[in-house]
């Protein structure tokens, strides 16, 4: 039958077409990180300059039992039984944590920042409830991990990891306990080993320090963090990398350091960062400087500005007086030709944004529901340090330099924003393709964060400096393309961020690492 053939022919054509359209596999590939032997064991790292500790001896570590002792031999026996054969799940945990303790805990912190980066919803009476640390899982969840909050959480995390690892390195090379597999060659190891002494365990140090900081920063995530902590510690046994006393000593050291670091956090001024009572005075200061139209929330109902007093939080790499000196000069008057030119540029983009401009705006948006620009840059930093096969302590140093500089950038930028209280382009009829942050325009946070991070990274990885700076430049431009910043917000923010980054660069050069 003629029709049947026709149907058959068309049917096979359709089938052929559909096969070409469909690849049924919908799995997603994410970049994988695997463990490595550090390019340098950094055996002198015990003398590197710490942030909060004055010396590694601020914390104590009990002397380990000799590897010949009965206690140690019993631990070895236990280790061999735990590492002899692994379940699929245990193997996956070993590989996951084997990518690096600092690397993974930074990634976990970024994940938490993203999960909590949602502005509270307004209530029926037009108010925005303030997240409550005592009731973190209520609506709105605590914290609202906006960029300043995330910058601070990530900075404290990296500082705690770094200080704890410097102290750990001090004790490692004091006690010089070899890895279990070097004491007993029959221990089956699942990860690359190095000559770094294993008491106290750097993994346990990082896990404990990170756990304490993240529990304080994300109090609703205790069960999640408990599970991560336990898995990380166990993975070291499963991998045959540490005996139990390596881990116990590491956890103890990590806890001690984190407690000291969190003591700084409690008094750094963050508790007053959301003091909304100060904004009236800030507006007066801005008006006294001649600003004719101040920033006003563009949300409905009007949302109180994000952390107006974050600029008063204690910075890491310079003091409060230096912060004031770092504050850029005033933005153009609203009736100036410079302002008109900048606004006209935005109006033109608003009318005919190119796909490439939209791509750049989206790539760097890092808005609600993401790990924020500080998270974006710490991911870049962690990947660069991992590719360079940095030891745990050098990885932590890298992230601490970048992380503290990012928090410094946040503080300086917020100080500037609320000092000038400059209106957003949306107050002049411009739309946005990325969402509008709820705080004054001048200067651009993305530009400040990005320039600070790129400056620090460029100093640590000089051969990639141009690449990092090009990324910072693109991140800065993205806010123009996304239509939420004038060009001068971005160029001035970029310059200020570069100056902020220099302080961390200088600290790094003077921290005794010789790096």
């Amino acid at each position, binding site marked *: 039958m003629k*029709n049947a053939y*026709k*149907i058959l022919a*068309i*049917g096979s054509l*359709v089938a052929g*077409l*559909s096969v070409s*359209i*469909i*690849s*049924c596999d*919908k*799995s*997603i*590939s*994410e*970049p994988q990180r695997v463990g490595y032997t550090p390019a340098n064991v950094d055996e002198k790292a015990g003398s590197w300059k710490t942030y909060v500790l004055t010396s590694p001896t601020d914390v104590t570590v009990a002397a380990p039992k000799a590897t010949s002792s009965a206690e140690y031999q019993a631990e070895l026996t236990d280790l061999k039984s735990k590492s002899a054969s692994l379940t699929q799940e245990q193997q996956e945990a070993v590989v996951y944590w084997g990518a690096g303790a600092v690397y993974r805990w930074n*990634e976990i912190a*970024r*994940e938490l920042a*993203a*999960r909590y980066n*949602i*502005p*509270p*919803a*307004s209530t029926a009476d037009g108010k925005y409830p303030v997240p409550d640390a005592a009731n973190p899982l209520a*609506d*709105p*969840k605590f914290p609202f991990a906006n960029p300043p909050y995330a910058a601070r959480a990530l900075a404290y995390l990296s500082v705690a990891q770094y200080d704890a690892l410097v102290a750990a390195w001090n004790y490692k090379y004091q006690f010089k306990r070899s890895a279990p597999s070097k004491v007993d060659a029959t221990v089956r190891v699942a990860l690359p080993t190095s000559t770094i002494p294993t008491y106290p365990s750097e993994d346990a140090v990082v896990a404990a320090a990170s756990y304490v900081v993240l529990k304080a920063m994300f109090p609703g995530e205790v069960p999640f963090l408990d599970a991560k902590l336990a898995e990380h510690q166990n993975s070291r046994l499963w991998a045959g990398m540490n005996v139990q006393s390596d881990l116990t000593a590491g956890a103890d050291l990590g806890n001690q350091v984190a407690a000291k670091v969190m003591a700084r956090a409690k008094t750094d001024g963050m508790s007053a960062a959301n003091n909304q009572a100060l904004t009236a005075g800030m507006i007066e200061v801005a008006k006294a400087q001649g600003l004719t139209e101040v920033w006003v929330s*563009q*949300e*409905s*109902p009007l949302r109180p500005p994000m952390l107006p007093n974050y600029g008063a939080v204690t910075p890491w790499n310079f003091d409060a007086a230096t912060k004031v000196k770092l504050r850029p000069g005033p933005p153009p008057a609203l009736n100036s030709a410079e302002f008109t030119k900048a606004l006209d540029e935005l109006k033109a983009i*608003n009318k005919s*944004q190119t*796909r490439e401009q*939209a*791509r750049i705006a*989206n*790539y760097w*948006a890092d808005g*609600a*529901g*993401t*790990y924020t620009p500080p998270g*974006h840059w710490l*991911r870049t930093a962690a990947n660069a340090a991992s590719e360079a096969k940095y030891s745990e302590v050098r990885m932590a140093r890298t992230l601490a330099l970048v992380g503290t500089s990012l928090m410094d950038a946040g503080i300086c930028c917020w100080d500037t924003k609320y000092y000038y209280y400059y209106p957003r382009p*949306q107050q002049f009829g*411009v*739309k*946005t*393709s990325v*969402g*509008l942050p709820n705080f004054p325009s001048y200067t651009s946070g993305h530009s400040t964060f990005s320039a600070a991070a790129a400056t620090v990274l460029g100093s640590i990885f000089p051969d990639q400096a141009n690449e990092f700076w090009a990324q910072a430049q693109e991140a800065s431009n993205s806010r123009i393309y996304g*239509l939420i910043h004038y060009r001068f917000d971005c160029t001035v923010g970029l310059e200020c961020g570069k100056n902020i980054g220099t302080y961390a660069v200088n600290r790094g050069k003077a921290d005794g690492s010789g790096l």
Partner: protein
Amino acid sequence: MKTILKSLAVAGLMAPFVAKAQMPNDAIYMGKKQLCVAGMYGYSSWSQYWENTLKRENFNIGTHTTQSVMVMPAYGISNRVNVILSLPYVWTSTSAGNLMGQHGIQDLAAWLKFKVVKAGGFSLNAIVGGSVPIGNYVPSFLPMSIGLQCRTFTGRLLASYREPKTGVYLTAHGSYGWRSNITIDQNSYQADDRVYNTDQVRVPNTYDAAVRLGVQRKGWQTEVWAERSSCLSGDNIRRNDMPFPTNNMQATTVGWYGKVQPRNIGVNARVGYVLDGMNVGQSTSYMVGLLYQINFNK
């Protein structure tokens, strides 16, 4: 007229957040070598949406509107095999807030409809369709994006009975829709309560089911319909966050469709209203179309 122009019933703008191309969902066929070209305009808007299961408004969106114009030719390869194409141009806007409207050519869709069984007034039809994005629009800027950048493939079974004397008919269909992964501009995003460190996004597959009851006579047609469309997996919009392509969008929609085509020129119209849903807007949608039929047999 021997070859009554058969309709191009439209389920376009059914997904309330994102307009999608029309989908053939009837048992009516163009005769052999008959071409019908439809030009349609669609308007869909919502001022309330379901954030997960929470129905809410958003003062920073106000009323969200999606409009589209579309060309949709349908051609009778034989009396029992039809091919249908569609290509819409879509634009979005809001009445409040400052989100920038998006606009552009969306996805090209193609459908093949086979009348597998015909017995008296009863027919069983197999319908397959696929779509590919044509425009390079941004898929992740929901609810402003005009589409999701997915390639899709849909398989549908449709049964219909038409009483020959009165023209009263009852049609029911069920479909399975495959949707490809997409690439977004960001290299990380949150979905399924975790962060993905990649620009690859898994968009859930879909199903839909619908029933239609109507009258089809020479030159005109009128029907009421109800449709359930849903993702087979996916996550929910987080509290006070924006929607995302991974969301499990679901909607139950009811509506009316009508067509008048006494000669080779005709008009059609469609109204739809979302009764219930998840992760979608409660949209009311309208479509009007102009139909023109050409007979290549002459």
